[in-house]
């Protein structure tokens, strides 16, 4: 069975959900090897990776890896591609994951596929393009397939792997040390899950009307344990920070459930959420295009519907 490298995503030493998804996916195609890049490695992390199927865990827990933008992780992976000759390399299709994939592709002379929503035999990837209008099967034809997979594409399933640990040292080149991270600024994000990773996303648009009114959206999100998103109309108006924008020029989300309140469903917004499994829309205009996508739509005033929905969920808890 081919070895498949999975780059671990972690925050402060905790393995992110998307990594468990990638391990699950890798398990269906070969023998997963998790690659830990950077400080914060622990026995807990190893146990978690093994629980979700990692047969091997490569550990490069040098602090230096995290001190520079992207290049060190690409060097580490390139080194492992050279020594382990894996069948494929999987990374999460986040902005940074894709950049790592890009540099790795150049280093190893391999093709790269981004934003896969599925991956099958022969590493043939499923992609959804043009705002969800067209489904594509694509594959790498030269080198080691490098595939960036969208969060929420696979349900994580625990299946124990051997979890054999292997320490790796990587001697960073000068060019990997060219862009130095001199400060990390953590902005308050509260207890909400990360937008791209969240299983549920509640988004507000122009219909929300003001920054203050976004409290309604946040409240609904919090009762569902969801992340908050926004349309560009809402971020342009300054009602919600830009990093929460969903769509073509914002984040792409692929949650189990997407709730759109006061969003018309313009093609550029759909480009960022159309692969959500279930879509619920609240809009007072019955002609709004978002209803074409909605599995469940309520034609009504969001200022009435959203608080009632929030209250009803609270009651049922």
């Amino acid at each position, binding site marked *: 069975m081919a070895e498949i490298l999975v780059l671990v995503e972690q925050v402060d030493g905790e393995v992110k959900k998307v990594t468990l998804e990638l391990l699950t996916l890798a398990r269906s195609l070969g023998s997963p090897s998790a690659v830990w890049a950077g400080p914060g490695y622990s026995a807990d992390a190893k146990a978690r990776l093994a629980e979700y199927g990692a047969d091997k865990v490569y550990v490069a827990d040098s602090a230096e890896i995290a001190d520079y*933008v*992207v*290049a060190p992780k690409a060097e580490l992976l390139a080194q492992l591609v050279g020594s382990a000759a894996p069948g494929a390399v999987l990374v999460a299709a*986040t*902005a940074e994951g894709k*950049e790592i*994939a*890009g*540099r790795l*592709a*150049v280093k190893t*002379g391999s*093709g*790269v596929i*981004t*934003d896969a929503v599925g991956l099958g035999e022969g590493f043939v990837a499923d992609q959804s393009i043009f705002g969800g*209008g*067209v*489904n*594509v*099967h694509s*594959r*790498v*034809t*030269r080198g080691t397939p490098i595939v960036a997979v969208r969060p929420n594409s696979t349900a994580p399933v625990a299946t124990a792997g051997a979890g054999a640990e292997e320490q790796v040292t990587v001697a960073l080149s000068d060019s990997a040390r*060219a*862009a*130095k*991270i*001199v400060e*990390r*600024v953590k*902005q308050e994000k509260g207890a909400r899950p*990360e937008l791209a990773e969240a299983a549920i996303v509640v988004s507000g648009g122009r219909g929300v009307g003001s920054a203050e009114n976004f409290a309604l959206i946040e409240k609904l999100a919090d009762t*569902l344990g969801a992340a908050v998103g926004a349309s560009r109309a809402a971020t342009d108006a300054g009602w919600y920070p830009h990093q929460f*924008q969903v769509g*073509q*020029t*914002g984040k792409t989300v692929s949650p*189990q*459930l997407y709730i759109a309140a006061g969003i018309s469903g313009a093609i550029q917004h759909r480009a960022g959420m159309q692969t959500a499994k*279930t*879509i619920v829309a609240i809009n007072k205009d019955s002609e709004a295009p978002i209803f074409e*996508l*909605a*599995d*469940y*739509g*309520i*034609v*009504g005033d969001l200022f009435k*519907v*959203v608080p*009632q*929905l*929030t*209250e*009803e*969920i609270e009651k*049922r808890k």
Partner: protein
Amino acid sequence: MNIVVCVKQVPDTATERKLRSDDKTLDRDAADGVINELCEYAVEEALRVKEAHGGEVTVLTMGPSKATETIRKALAMGADKAVHLVDDALHGSDALATSYAMAQALKKIGFDLVILGSESTDARTGLLAAMLAERLGAPQLTLANKVELSGQSITIQRLTDYGYDKVESTLPAVVSVVEKINEPRYPSFKGIMAAKKKQVQTLGIADAEIDAAQVGLAGAWSEVVDFAAAPPRAAGTIVKDEGDGGSRAAEYLASKKFI
């Protein structure tokens, strides 16, 4: 300061976009071509750097002949001159091949600073800036929502999930910018007239010393196996709020086990 801004022409997202049935590449004739929106932020940032620190802004575009419309737009915003990498041999290039061809062109042009958009709206790979940094051996200062220069050093704020990283390097460097880093200017009438007279140099693959075997469809590292229109989503249930819309939505969510 020699600033090169990479600008791409993309099919207008408001029109229907297609893949060609013959070679499964993007059908660039089917839709109107427009400047990739994120590239407008890149052009604006390039102009601001020039205004603050002096130098010259060169537009670099790889694309078919009709991409000249997009080049003129960037020139009308205020860029000084342009290089158009255009050759039939480049048709069908994937991200890896594009980065190779663009890197060759950049070596010909020379640069202190290369500025790109963070993503294109057609392929949406977001790969090119990182690939160029790798190929050119230049520092990767990507996903910037703020750029500051001082002498030979450059600092950016790199957007992250938790906020931002402050990243530092020396020039030359490759920068990509995110939406809302600035407010792109509209070309003035004077700018549009002036753009008509600005120099657009065309480069073919031989001029840029690009190996034909590494680009185009035949040289691609990945391929589209097949494609099909996405099946329409099954029609959903649409209800009118009669005072119980929220409760009914809750019932629906419960039936789907979300609550």
